């Protein structure tokens, strides 16, 4: 269990007006995996390094397993090597002058309580077994592949049985195919051991795949948090919606409300959407629609389709992306069905699925302060 209150880390240098980590409150429940997700420079890695003690906060409090490891009020700062943590680094950080098992044994032989060699070796072998590398134990570290090195790194972080596991973009140095395997491995090991884990990434697919809870960050602040499914299906802010790949957005006005469903008038018609937050009639909103929720047809069978023309198409193998101009807006539609190819200039009708689009009030703050959400306003797609 990790509890963080009012955590602040300033940037080095004077010219910077905002903080690297700006007043963050965060709790990672026992045994859960929480992802810190956000674009580069959003403060996610800094937050992780503050938890680890690799950097010193400027204010706030951090507890690990109930024990205070940092507190600006009580002037407590526990050094990295005295915190009950295991860290996996983006660059693996596997020591090149040691073998695999020597790497994994290091924490057992160097920490506060030192195990005798045979015992340490046995425990290190267990950890290697856990990540499936027991038979490579005596390989020199540089002779291992990237994926193997990252699994060594994971074994090394776990062998001391730390209270929390901290993963700093552990997959981003790996090849694409390998990435999925190591990702699955990390999640499997984490659930098997039930270890409290913080996982930092900039990749939303990765975050969705492994997390119990996703925390979205921007400008050093937390924008939104929630279970992976909720973050994906029901984002509550424009920043989250865009970051989670909902690339179509249109301005509209609320005309009717019932529970969490609202009817929205759009430039091309009306649409029943899911409301993010409390909406009343007359509210200005932005409607976010996933490309998968837009279907295309040559004829307007329902009478609700929006008339447009195909700009261009992209073939992905398992699906097509059609970019369709409707009025002033360029909409992206993803079609999985085998389809007669549409090409540039073809007239089509775009029909949005009802009750899947999300209506987000205009001007939802990107974060809980008034920083302009620059990244959020960039047109996606």
């Amino acid at each position: 269990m990790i509890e963080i209150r009012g955590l602040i880390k300033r940037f080095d240098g004077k010219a910077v007006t905002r903080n690297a980590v700006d007043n963050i409150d965060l709790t990672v429940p026992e045994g859960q995996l929480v992802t810190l997700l956000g674009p580069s420079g959003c403060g996610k890695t800094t937050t992780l390094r503050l938890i680890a003690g690799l950097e010193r906060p400027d204010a706030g409090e951090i507890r690990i397993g109930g024990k205070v490891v940092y507190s600006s009020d009580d002037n407590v700062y526990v050094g990295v090597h005295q915190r009950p943590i295991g860290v996996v680094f983006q660059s693996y950080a596997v020591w090149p002058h040691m073998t695999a098992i020597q790497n994994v044994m290091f924490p057992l032989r160097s920490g506060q309580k030192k195990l005798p060699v045979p015992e340490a070796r046995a425990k290190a072998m267990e950890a290697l077994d856990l990540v499936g590398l027991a038979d490579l134990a005596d390989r020199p570290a540089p002779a291992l592949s990237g994926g193997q090195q990252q699994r060594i790194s994971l074994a090394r972080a776990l062998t001391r049985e730390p209270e929390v596991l901290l993963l700093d973009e552990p997959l981003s140095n790996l090849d694409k195919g390998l990435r999925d395997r190591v990702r699955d491995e990390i999640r499997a090991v984490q659930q098997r051991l039930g270890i409290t884990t913080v996982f930092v990434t900039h990749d939303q697919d990765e975050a969705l795949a492994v997390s119990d809870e996703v925390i979205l960050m921007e400008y050093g602040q937390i924008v939104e948090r929630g279970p992976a499914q909720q973050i994906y299906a029901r984002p509550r802010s424009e920043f989250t919606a865009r970051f989670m790949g909902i690339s179509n957005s249109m301005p509209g006005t609320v005309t009717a409300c019932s529970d969490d469903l609202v009817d929205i008038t759009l430039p091309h018609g009306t649409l029943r959407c899911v409301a993010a937050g409390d909406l009343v009639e007359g509210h200005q909103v932005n409607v976010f629609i996933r490309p998968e929720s837009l279907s295309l047809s040559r004829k307007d069978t329902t009478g609700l389709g929006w008339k447009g023309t195909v700009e261009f198409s992209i073939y992905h193998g398992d699906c097509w992306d059609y970019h369709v101009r409707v009025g002033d807006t360029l909409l992206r539609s993803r079609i999985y069905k085998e389809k007669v190819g549409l090409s540039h200039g073809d007239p089509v009708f775009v029909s949005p699925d009802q009750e899947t689009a999300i209506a987000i009030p205009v001007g939802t703050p990107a974060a809980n302060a008034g920083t302009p959400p620059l990244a959020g306003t960039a047109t996606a797609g």
Partner: protein
Amino acid sequence: MSLISRSRPAPPPTRGASRPAGTATSRILVWFRNPRNILLAVVALVVAYLAVVPAGTMVVASLQGSFLSADKTTWTLRHYGETLGTSDFWVLVGNSFAYAAATAAVCTVVGFGLAYLVSRTNTPAKFFAQIAALVPLIIPGILNTVAWALLFAPRTGALNVLLRDLHLPAFDIYSLAGMVLVQSMHVTPVAFLMGTAAFGNMDSSLEEAALSSGAPPWRVFRTITARLIRPAVMSAALLMFVQTISTFEVPQLIGVPGHKFVFVSRIYNALQQFPTDYGTVGVIGIFILVVASVGLYFSRKLGGSGAEAQTITGKGFRPTSIDLGRWKWLGLAAFVVFFVVAVALPLLMLVWSSLLPGYEPPSIAALHRLTLSNYSAVLHTPALTKSVTNSLITAVLAGAVVTVLSSLVAYITVKTKARGRGILDGLATVPIAVPSVVMGVGILYWYLTAPLPFHLYGTLAILVIAFVTIGLPYGMRYIVPGIAQIKDELEEAAAVSGASWLRTFRRIYVPLLAPSLLAAFLYTVIVAFREISAAIFLYTEDTQVVSVTIYTEWANGSYPIVAALGVFIVVFLAVIVGLVSLVTRKTGLNRNRH
């Protein structure tokens, strides 16, 4: 050497289907029809000549019965037997190794220690790190030596006076310890730079991983940092050893008065005697050459294996600081002490001495005698102004030649598939392994004995040749990375647009390389301007360069003149160094490398 190739930009038309397979001769003739190939072949020959001549002549001299005499040439190993058989020689070996090894140890420990503080801890000393890059360039070894000799002059040296006032025993600088001190002061900043580079290349998450494994900081330093940095330390120590064993100023100015002879001073003094024992000089020269080559070989090898520590750094790489807490002020103090001792003291000593009519230690009373007369003496003594002019001419010429040569060599080795380009690359770096003393003596021997249609001894040209040879590897270091960054497509695009190769080189490469070329030029000017270890063997009355003048004026006892001239030199070098760092910083080239 053969540079025959199928080179990318202008493939020789040898493979035409209609063309019958030509003889070897005709193929070579065809190859030479391309002006580019002729130019490249000439460049290769020039570089080979420059690289091979000094060391080669040295070998020949050591093997001839009576070198440089009218007698018939005989070949013999006699000199080796005679020289290596004397106990005198082995005393020399003992002195030289003790001197160089102690210097290497001192400057590597201090240099890497300071580098660790600045690159791995939060010691607030980044400012010093930037200065350190410049110091060894603007204070030539000869001036450093002169300043320390003044600081620790047996009776009147400023520091010895101070020691005596504190009732401490005076320090005798004319001893092995004195030599080590003076040379260490000169080379430690270089070791410091190598240290910051080594620590900078090491992914700091390797240390963070150990910290977060529960190892306390001192254990991390011992088991991870020290272990990973070890090859770089050994590599730097060997390089310092080689540099120390092959330079002139400290052994001659500090060692000889204390009767501590090492290789370099022995060679110099042997050449001052008549009749000169050329054979012994040759043998000692070869001995240093071998020691230097072996040292550099292992230095490179270790430096290379340091790459294992570089594994992958990725974009997550950010060098971080170990928080020293209050101890960081102690770290800062270490820097301040070092810079006061290694930089401020020698420079202040020079300035002080340059302002007095005769040397005396600093005191209130002496303030009344301050004068600028030494500066005006420097400006109005024809012999001195002439040596400055000579230095400027040779340095600028050497800079220009090195720039042209190394850009062409770099082109051949990086951008063509010419056979033998690896050898050419090797030849261009050979001068690094040839100690400057050997370079000087070898060049001297060659131009005294070679049956050439012109006489270079006694001209500035012979000095330019020496400086070009010494500067070539440095020029290469600036230009090779520059040329490697230029994509082949840029040249190919020019060729496709119909430009000839010469035009392509002029219009594409030269403008894109301009910053590298300028940096290589200026850096060679600095190297040539400071050079003494080779020049000391090559100058004559008329062709004295400024570094040699410092030495001869010092030997004559004109300390104030030496100091005033020294201040001029430091100011001049500081300006050029400023230009170099402006050029390199503006264009994002690497920091000054040594």
